[in-house]
């Protein structure tokens, strides 16, 4: 399995290409579902971020390139379909930062998928806050506690979802 694993992480095989395509499509469906359900009563702009589960799964399979490719394709397509240039800037900042940070954190073996997901969720929100600060000024800092809590809660939910999935799936074997 190890030989096959290293082979599959270095080369873009047809099988992996298909998988990325399917995962991107899945992300877009998640994005669409989330655009239907408004959670604005919790805090404006709050989302569960189901599509982050996909990136998280790929990261736990040590496939950083795949996670990046799927995540960026997902963000661009979702912004095109349901978003605006402003929402694109927000998603890109959050998406890229959380993938990088989660990947680095996944190198530490004391952290489980749930912990990765919580950290990723919070980092995602913090980087979106940076974009908000560029657009509207430093006053947006007042949103930090809300972002930490919502990021941690949605991250935990996604993490639990992923750890259940990881036990059932044989993704990228």
């Amino acid at each position, binding site marked *: 399995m190890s030989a096959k694993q290293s082979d599959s992480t270095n080369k873009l095989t047809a099988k992996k290409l298909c998988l990325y395509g399917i995962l991107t499509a899945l992300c877009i469906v998640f994005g669409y579902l989330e655009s239907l359900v408004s959670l604005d009563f919790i805090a*404006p702009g709050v989302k569960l971020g189901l599509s982050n589960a996909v990136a998280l799964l790929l990261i736990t399979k040590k496939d950083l390139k795949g996670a990046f490719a799927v995540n960026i394709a997902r963000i661009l397509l979702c912004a095109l379909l349901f978003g605006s240039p402003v929402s694109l800037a927000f998603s890109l900042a959050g998406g890229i930062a959380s993938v990088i940070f989660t990947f680095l954190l996944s190198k530490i073996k004391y952290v489980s998928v749930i912990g990765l997901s919580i950290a990723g969720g919070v980092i995602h929100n913090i980087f979106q806050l940076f974009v908000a600060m560029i*657009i*509207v*000024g430093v006053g947006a800092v007042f949103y930090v*506690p809300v972002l*930490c809590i919502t990021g941690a809660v949605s991250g935990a939910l996604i993490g639990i979802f992923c750890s259940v999935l990881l036990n059932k799936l044989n993704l990228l074997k």
Partner: protein
Amino acid sequence: MLKKGDGIILLAVVILAVIGFALIKVFSANGNTVTVKEDNKIVYKGSLYENTQIKLEGNTVDISDGYAKMLNADCKNQICVKHKQISKNGESIICLPNRVIVQIN
């Protein structure tokens, strides 16, 4: 399922949130001036106790009895209109689609 590192992460997040809350509490004395910005340019600056309405391209800001709020906005999400009225130092109502900021200081 959970490992040691998860606790540390959770602790870091909680600390960050608490620091944020503390900062808000420290700076949340009642303010007395309102600044309205559009596209980062100040379009109105005045007392919070001077009742007035400010008409902008897509938004109307209402200032009355020490509170400021967004009366209406022509944007789709209406987040700024739903935002509660503000009175405290540093609080703000932001309408991202129209790039309008109402701030107390």
